[in-house]
C-alpha cells in the first residue's frame, strides 16, 4: 500500500475520537516498518517487540492529541525512535549517548578503505553472507548516526521528516547522514575488499 492509500484509508477524525477499527488500520499500516526500525536499531527481536508494543500503546494513549502537524508515519517513527533510544540507555546506563565519540560535530573522517568493489557482480553483493554484513555494519554504527540512517535510507523519510521525527535541525540530519553512510562504506569496503582479494587468489590464471 502506498503512503497516499494508507492516509486515505484512515479517517483522522474517527481515529482521534478513539475508533478501534481506524486504530487497527493504523496498526496494520505501520507495524511492519516500526518493527523493522526497532529491530535494526536494537539488533534483537525481543527488544524490537517491546518497542513495537510500547509505540502503539503510546499512540493509542495520545492519538486524541494528534494535531496532524506531521504525518501519522512521522509521528509514529518519532515515538518509536525515542522508545528505542531510551531502551538502549536503560540497557547501557554507563554510556551516555552524548559522550559517544562520533557525534554530529566535526568533519567527516577521511576515507581509509579504497578497495574498488563497486563493480563486483550483483550476486556477490546480495548473498546471504553479504546481507549479514550489512546488518552487522548497522549495529556497529554509533546510535545517533544509526537512527538517522535508518529513518532516511532504510525507511525512506525525507530529510525534513527525519528532522521532525528526531527533533534535529535539517543540517544536523544531513551531517549525521553523511557520517553514517561513510561509516558503513568503510565497513563494507573492508568486507568486500577482502572478498575481492580472496577471489583474485583463487583465480587459476594467477
Amino acid at each position: 500500500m502506498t503512503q497516499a492509500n494508507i492516509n486515505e484509508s484512515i479517517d483522522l477524525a474517527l481515529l482521534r475520537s478513539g475508533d478501534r477499527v481506524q486504530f487497527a488500520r493504523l496498526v496494520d499500516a505501520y507495524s511492519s516498518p516500526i518493527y523493522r526500525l526497532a529491530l535494526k536499531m536494537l539488533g534483537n527481536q525481543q527488544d524490537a517487540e517491546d518497542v513495537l508494543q510500547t509505540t502503539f500503546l503510546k499512540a493509542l494513549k495520545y492519538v486524541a492529541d494528534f494535531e496532524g502537524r506531521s504525518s501519522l508515519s512521522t509521528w509514529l517513527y518519532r515515538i518509536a525512535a525515542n522508545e528505542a533510544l531510551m531502551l538502549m540507555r536503560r540497557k547501557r546506563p554507563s554510556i551516555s549517548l552524548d559522550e559517544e565519540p562520533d557525534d554530529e560535530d566535526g568533519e567527516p573522517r577521511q576515507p581509509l578503505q579504497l578497495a574498488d568493489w563497486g563493480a563486483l557482480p550483483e550476486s556477490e553483493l546480495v548473498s546471504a553472507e553479504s546481507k549479514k554484513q550489512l546488518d552487522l555494519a548497522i549495529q556497529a554504527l554509533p546510535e545517533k548516526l544509526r537512527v538517522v540512517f535508518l529513518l532516511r535510507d532504510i525507511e525512506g523519510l525525507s530529510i525534513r521528516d527525519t528532522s521532525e521525527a528526531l527533533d534535529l535541525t535539517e543540517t544536523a540530519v544531513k551531517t549525521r547522514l553523511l557520517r553514517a553512510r561513510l561509516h558503513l562504506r568503510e565497513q563494507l569496503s573492508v568486507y568486500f575488499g577482502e572478498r575481492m582479494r580472496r577471489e583474485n587468489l583463487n583465480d587459476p590464471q594467477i
Partner: protein
Amino acid sequence: MTHKYDLSCKEMLGNLSDFIDGDLSDDACQEIQRHMAGCENCRVVYDTLTRTIYLYQASAAEGELPEDVRGRLYQCLRLDDLLNTKK
C-alpha cells in the same frame, strides 16, 4: 590524496551525500564530476558509497511483521477481535 581542481577532496567528501541525493546545484555537481575525473580515490569513494546506499535501500523493503508478533501486538492493544478482519 592529491587533486588538480579547485575543489579539495575534503570539500568533495562534505558534499557527497547531497550530490548522491540530487540536492546540489548544477554548478556544484559539475565541479564534483570534474574533480572525480582527475582523482581516482574520490571516484572509488563515490562509487562504493553509492553502492553501499543502494545495497541498503534494496534490502529495505524486506521484513514483514511475523504473525506471532502481530498477534501479541493486537492482544496488548486489546484489538484481538479485529485481528482477522485485516489483510
